[in-house]
């Protein structure tokens, strides 16, 4: 849910109206009061909403109102889709039943994702975006311990509110916490549990014909009880006998640093293996606390053709070397195969790659583990996830059976479902702000950033953009 900020200028200049409202919010009254009002206003029907258009006596009237059931306690993050707020059950209302998880426990806190209407400042119903429809339908249908739990969806005031169970942390936040001085590695037990839970959730998705298409540390939540929860299914879709090639629907999927080589090479008919590549990148990032392939995204030109991501391909090549036909038989069939030759010209380092073994040994040596470091099984798993040929890359099912999880002869102790088990580290709670300018603005301006982290906005790549054909 919490994406790194979009550093692209894809959203265009801020509208005058947005700038005005931001200004008004900042200048009016004592700050505390303004903050409360700003938060409240975000969840109320715009006062100038015209009377509902009569649909022959069936105007849309919501059955449930967000403000009857939830108290908004703050703002978490924003993205191209809209914004996310933290909320709790409505206080002082005896008629409201607290929300229950299917397992029976009471849900204490919520993350409410508010989708903004497609067009900014539009007081009209404009049709719900494809992305929101996917996320609503998939989250309603799916249920797994390693998937973020959807409590309900409320459609009100021309906005969609998806109410999720709140998760205190996410992997990006945890990586960041460990990279603060004094830098400490993520303990091996935590790493193993995290990867196991992540792959379990991914196996469930793939078994249900869902490919996530935007796995990255910021989209993987962690509860205070150490449960991993895959979030943000806004790019996810069903891939069972698609009516069109997946490429036709969305030209660009997966945030650049986590994008699989077959996607970089323009594959039209990619498979769930793209999610496993992303898992490999996340694994490496959990080990080294920085993205393993930190490339720069080539922007689309004015003709809207999808550019070849030479820089990103080069970053992968620096570690793994460039892909070769001998290891990946279908490589010459890739639409961007011809461009692959140009990578070495721009980035000579790909001809003398570091090699994943060396990358791994350097990383482990630099980490100064207090307890036992991850063993060589971890390296082997990483190598099989970062396999160039998508047909040879491990599936989620195979990965879960890897010796890293089950031991050399399958006799190892299975990883805990609590990734914090036995740890003393206390991770800081997610930062929740009540800054009004973040509420009053449009949430998509360059510079609005995911809160709770220092401004590494320019260092994080933009979220995968959804682009439609035509």
């Amino acid at each position, binding site marked *: 849910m919490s994406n790194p900020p979009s550093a692209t200028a894809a959203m265009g200049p801020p509208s005058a109206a947005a700038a005005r409202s931001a200004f008004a919010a900042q200048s009016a009254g004592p700050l505390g009061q303004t903050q409360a009002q700003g938060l409240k206003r975000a969840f109320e029907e715009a006062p100038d909403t015209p009377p509902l258009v009569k649909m022959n006596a069936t*105007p849309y009237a919501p059955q449930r109102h967000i403000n009857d059931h939830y108290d908004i306690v703050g703002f978490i993050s924003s993205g191209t889709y809209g914004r996310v707020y933290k909320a709790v059950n409505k206080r002082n209302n005896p008629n409201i039943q607290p929300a229950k998880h299917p397992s029976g426990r009471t849900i204490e806190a919520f993350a409410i994702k508010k989708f903004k209407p497609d067009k900014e400042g539009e007081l009209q119903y404009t049709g719900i975006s494809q992305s929101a429809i996917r996320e609503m*339908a998939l989250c309603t249908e799916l249920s797994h311990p390693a998937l973020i739990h959807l409590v309900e969806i409320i459609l009100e005031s021309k906005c969609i509110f998806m109410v999720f169970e709140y998760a205190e942390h996410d992997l990006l936040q945890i990586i960041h916490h460990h990279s603060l001085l004094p830098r400490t590695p993520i303990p091996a037990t935590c790493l193993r549990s995290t990867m196991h839970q992540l792959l379990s959730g991914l196996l469930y998705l793939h078994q249900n014909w869902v490919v996530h298409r935007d796995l990255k540390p910021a989209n993987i939540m962690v509860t205070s009880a150490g449960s991993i929860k895959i979030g943000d299914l806004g790019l996810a879709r069903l891939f069972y006998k698609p009516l069109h090639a997946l490429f036709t629907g969305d030209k660009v999927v997966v945030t650049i640093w986590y994008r699989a080589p077959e996607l970089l090479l323009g594959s039209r008919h990619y498979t769930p293996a793209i999610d496993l590549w992303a898992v490999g990148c996340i694994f490496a990032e959990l080990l080294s606390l920085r993205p393993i392939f930190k490339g720069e995204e080539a922007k689309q030109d004015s003709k809207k053709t999808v550019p070849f991501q030479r820089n990103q391909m080069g970053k992968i090549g620096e570690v793994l070397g460039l892909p070769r036909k001998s290891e990946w038989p279908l490589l010459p069939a890739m639409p961007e195969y011809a461009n692959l030759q140009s990578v070495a010209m721009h980035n000579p380092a790909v001809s003398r790659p570091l090699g994943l073994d060396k990358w791994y040994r350097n990383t482990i040596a630099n980490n100064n583990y207090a307890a036992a470091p991850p063993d060589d099984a971890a390296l082997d798993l990483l190598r099989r996830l970062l396999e160039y040929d998508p047909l040879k890359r491990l599936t989620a099912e195979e990965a879960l059976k890897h010796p890293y999880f089950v031991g050399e002869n399958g006799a190892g102790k299975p990883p805990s479902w609590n990734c914090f088990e036995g740890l003393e580290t206390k991770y800081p709670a997610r930062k929740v702000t009540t800054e009004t300018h973040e509420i009053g603005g449009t949430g998509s301006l360059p510079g609005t950033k995911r809160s709770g982290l220092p401004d590494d906005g320019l260092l994080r790549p933009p979220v995968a953009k959804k682009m439609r054909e035509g």
Partner: protein
Amino acid sequence: MAANYYDSTQAKYWTFTRPELLAHRTTLAKQHAALHTKYPLPDPRHINIYLQTQLTKLAKRMSLRQQALATAQIYLKRFYLHVEPRRTNPYLILATATYLACKMEETPQHIRLLLNEAARQWPELGAQDTGRIGECEFALISTLSSRLIVHHPYRALADLQGPLALGADEAALAHAVLNDSFVTDLALLYPPTVIAVAAVFLAVVLRPAHPAGLQAHSSSAAAAAAAAAAAGGPAMSAAAVQGAVAGGALAGFGFRQSPQRMGKLVDWLAESKVDMEAVVDATQEMVSLYECWESYNERACKEAISRFVRDAAK
């Protein structure tokens, strides 16, 4: 879910027993007794034929994929289980169900294009504003409780084709029967497999025995089904179905035609875990639909609907 109907929201929340469906509808009718008196409608099955045929026509006009159409048809059925039709403009619901289904099946259509096509087909829609489809989309999703992933029997039919060695004609006819099944409540009653088996059953049992009963003049069932669909008619005529019933085909596997063919089907059914009682019930539902279709009058349905649509627009 997507892999397994039995874990899906369709199985959990949108599959009912016949008494449950009846109770739902009785309650709804009681709540709107005055509207029912003021705007009498023909046989509900005729209204269903009318609405589903209209939806099919819009899909044809826009060259939509079968799967998107089928999803729209299910949305329509689910929506009217909860909402009294006389309180709506059915044409707006049809257009919106199509708009939403296309997005859900990953073949999105622009809201403006959809509105234009719908308005051209149905002057009664009376909307030039895409905002009305957008608003209606909220109502539709809310009524469906955001449970938008639908399992269709087409996939099950495709899976049956090999094991049952269905010929192209039989498969095409079974496919056409599935198209017709959206008029009935079957999709609200049974898993997709049951409906697919019933369609195969009808196609295999009835076709070889009564080729003359098929509606079109062509000897090919595929062409017949296609012609019937193009004419907006059912895949089978009541005469064919009744002939088969009289021949005892549905009463308990007493077929005399193509014993080999039937033997294979019966063997497969016996081994499969398909609920045979449900298949028989579904088959009978289709048979009675084709009977009912004989007396269908499009004009009567259109006019009855126009009366409340017109009054509401005033």
